[in-house]
């Protein structure tokens, strides 16, 4: 009897700590800034425990009955907390509110546990022993939980299933208590039925954890998928690891929020700052609004037309709070006009001219995308270029896809343009390349917008220098009727990925 009682104490202590750790971990993965998240979660949790302890004095009668109920509710709330919070993050607004409400509720329930238990057992033990034993096992449970959580639970079960497992343990303790305190429990049958239902629910939850929150049962050390959406055109996946937000389109990395400023500053400013008095800008692709964010740094620009195929993509980057934080709400600027259209037919049908044109398409991984890297396309784009205008083209990696990079440069050249290839290092991508193309001579700008993190005027010339391992290789131009680029790209990447 004694040892079983104290094992129960150990278990409920472990459960309480696991819920706290789950909430803290989940908050830091989803919201970033783990120090802040853990501090506030622990603070809130301890404070709630205090509330629970304070409330315990208002419980007069039916202590054992209420204790079992608390354990049961705690098991259900704590067990589903992780899955619920993942779902809330993906589908509901006000995630932080839901998070702290959950932590508060769990904390209050946990805070009630020990005082009630102490009062239940006070008749059986000497007060001194009761306090010593209960608190000893309480702290032992905490130690066990804090060691199990990072070493076994998270790596092997994941956050969702860990919480559910401990929810089940919690409910099991409730069930066990109905036997333990059988003498003091009048309505045992109802309680046991409740426990059985809760156990079943948590068991189903365990089994279905993948579907409840597909992201959560993955190895926690891989990135959490916080958004996954199939649109008519592509598969959009947004992942977050701590404060690093990454966008994948059909499994290809588009940016990492840690270093995208390098990519987008380099994509926009060397070309745009070289255009005298730019007024009208066209962005093809780039539905993430990050290139537009850079372009908006030029107050003299009156209008930016963004053409992106996928309305869901531009909608997402116009509305999702994490994404609009990243692109500074660029897509909602009154100077920006978003058009959802297939770029090539749009270019054919449109009559406007632009001072700066950004071509930022996904890599030429297939013949459909390859059409957007052909002489026919570049010729059509060049017809929209004003006399002083400049085009810049995302051109894959001159390091990993050297043939592809120089094929794109050659294609621009054979489209009747002068080309100025350059490159930079983007940690999440590796060496990456762009090509500036224009009908006139290009000279690097002598001023850049203030407040850039990567580019400065002194550093610009170095971008246009290619070391021998990335130097130009002779390649034919990519044409609609002979898409050498897609084949080269396939070869290039196959060489690297074995």
């Amino acid at each position: 009897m004694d040892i079983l009682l104290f094992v129960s104490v150990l278990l409920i202590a472990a459960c309480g700590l696991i819920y706290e750790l789950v909430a803290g971990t989940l908050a830091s993965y989803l919201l970033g800034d783990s120090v802040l998240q853990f501090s506030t979660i622990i603070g809130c949790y301890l404070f709630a425990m205090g509330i629970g302890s304070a409330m315990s004095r208002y419980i007069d009668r039916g202590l054992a009955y209420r204790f079992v109920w608390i354990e049961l509710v705690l098991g259900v709330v704590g067990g589903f907390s992780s899955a619920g919070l993942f779902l809330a993050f993906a589908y509901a607004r006000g995630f932080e509110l839901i998070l702290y409400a959950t932590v508060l509720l769990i904390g209050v329930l946990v805070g009630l546990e020990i005082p009630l238990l102490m009062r239940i057992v006070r008749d059986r033990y000497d007060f001194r022993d009761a306090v010593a034993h209960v608190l000893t096992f309480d702290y032992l449970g905490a130690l066990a939980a804090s060691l199990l959580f990072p070493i076994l639970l998270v790596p092997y079960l994941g956050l969702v299933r860990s919480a559910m497992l401990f929810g089940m343990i919690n409910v099991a303790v409730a069930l066990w208590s109905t036997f333990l305190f059988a003498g003091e429990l009048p309505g045992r049958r109802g309680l046991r039925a409740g426990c059985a239902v809760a156990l079943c629910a948590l068991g189903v939850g365990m089994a279905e954890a993948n579907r409840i929150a597909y992201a959560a049962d993955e190895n926690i050390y891989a990135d959490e998928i916080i958004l996954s959406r199939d649109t008519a055109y592509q598969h959009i996946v947004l992942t977050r690891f701590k404060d690093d937000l990454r966008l994948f389109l059909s499994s290809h990395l588009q940016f990492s929020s840690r270093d995208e400023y390098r990519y987008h500053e380099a994509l926009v400013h060397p070309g745009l700052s070289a255009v005298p008095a730019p007024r009208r800008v066209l962005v093809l692709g780039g539905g993430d609004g990050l290139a537009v964010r850079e372009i908006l740094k030029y107050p003299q620009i009156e209008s930016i037309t963004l053409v992106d195929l996928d309305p869901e993509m531009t909608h997402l980057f116009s509305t999702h709070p994490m994404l609009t934080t990243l692109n500074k709400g660029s897509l909602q600027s009154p100077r920006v006009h978003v058009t959802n259209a297939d770029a090539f037919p749009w270019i054919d049908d449109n009559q406007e001219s632009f001072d700066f044109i950004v071509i930022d398409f996904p890599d030429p991984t297939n013949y459909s995308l390859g059409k957007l890297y052909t002489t026919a396309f570049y010729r059509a784009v060049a017809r929209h270029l004003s006399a002083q205008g400049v085009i810049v083209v995302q051109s894959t990696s001159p390091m990993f896809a050297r043939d592809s990079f120089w094929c794109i440069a050659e294609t621009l050249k054979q489209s009747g343009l002068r080309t100025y290839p350059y490159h930079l290092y983007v940690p999440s991508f590796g060496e990456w390349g762009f090509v500036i193309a224009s009908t006139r001579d290009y000279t690097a700008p002598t001023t850049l917008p203030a407040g850039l993190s990567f580019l400065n005027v002194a550093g610009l010339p170095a971008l246009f220098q290619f070391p021998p391992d990335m130097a130009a290789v002779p390649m034919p131009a990519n044409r609609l009727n002979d898409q050498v680029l897609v084949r080269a790209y396939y070869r290039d990447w196959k060489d690297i990925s074995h």
Partner: protein
Amino acid sequence: MKVSRRRFAKTGSAALVGLSFKGERTMAGSFVNDSFDSGHRLRDRAAFSPVQRVETFPVVIVGGGIAGLSAAWQLNRRGFKDFVLLEMEREAGGNARSGENEVTKYPWAAHYVPAPGPGATYARELFEELGALRNGRWDERYLCFTPQERLFLHGRWQEGVEPATGLSTADHDQFRKLDDLLAGFRARGQFTIPMERGLGTDAAGLDRISFSAWLRAQGLDSRPLHWYMNYCCRDDYGALASQTSAWAGIHYFASREHEDDGGTLTWPEGNGWIVRQLLQRVAPFVRTDRMVHRIAQRGRGYSVLSGTTEYQCEFVIFAAPTFLAPYLVEGIPPLPSFEYSPWLTANLTMERLPASADVTWDNVVMESPALGYVDAMHQSVRTHIGRTVWTFYWALADGSAAQNRQLLLDQDWRSWKEAILRDLERVHPDIRACVSRVDIMRMGHAMARPTVGAIYDPARRRMAALQGRLLFANSDLSGFSIFEEAQYRGVRAAEHVLGVVGGSAVLRRPTGLR
């Protein structure tokens, strides 16, 4: 090829008789562009209405396919505008006809032209005028996009239509040997486009044996090689290699520069694009729904009867299929050596692509009796293609042409639709879930067949010679129906008219009759 021919018979009849419609979505469609009735009235020499009015033109062109339209194009281009073109169908275009629905334009028959080499002067002049050829360079938007062709064999797709996977060393050696032989013919320059340019007497022997017999005589008996040669004959001539003159079989390969040289010109609506471009220039001269039922000599010129109108003219350019001439023109004896292949084409409106499809332009299945299908959206510059139209080609090459013509008439739309879907199911099991409409066009006399002896046939050579004031211009005079031959003969006939009497007063009337 024997295997697949037998299979044709089997699957063909099974499809025609079996007809199961388990779980099939409602599929709309019908036969379209039927012209059997008017053709058969000619054949049966039915009575036609008496003449009620007379119009006079120096030149009347009979037939609005590529040959007739090209003749019109050349007359107009040379400033001669006093002529009329009479077309039997509601729309001009002949074997280059096309259609259009809410998804895309699509071809009904001829759907590409291999980029004409330097010898095809008239064709190059036309394409220069149409903006497809600039400074010796073809506009890439009109060249077939990547990926071009694929073949389904041994349970998977390979790139290109020439079998390349699963070949034995002997097969490889034979393909190489044939390549060498054809390179030799190419170098000799007897096989040209237009064919008349290189036609000499020293290659006449090749016209006396069949292509398959010639291949065997060279020691070429590889099955994949014979399949491929057969496929090419079915595709270009609607005939089997055993029915095709060896001269024509060799011409197919030896007349053009190496494949990757110029590329292939194609458009969503196939050669219908060329028809539209020509019509933009000559539409005012074209009268459709005008079936000519009689052409009779009248003084120095001719009287052309169509409906209740008599067109009196100095010259007739007869650009309609030449086999019609004996039924229309007094004094032309029957032309038994002119053979034509019956064809069936279908346009399938696709709500989505089958799961297995990574569709290229031209998709061929080795085991199929049909020729495969072409994707009309392939030449679109869009990166994302949702709906599309597939044009399914089926030359009824095996068996007697007369029987196959009867088969075309006897089987109803539903049977043909089933046969087509069953054929496509070999490679796209979910095809029925993708197709919403199947329109089918039946052509009894689609293409001229260069049968053994056809190329050097004296009757054909006689008709082909531009003499007198009745000038024959159809591509069948070359022995086979390809765009370049039709265009060449049409332009040549127009040149002949302009050349012979270019300066005479007859052709210089102050007012037209428009």
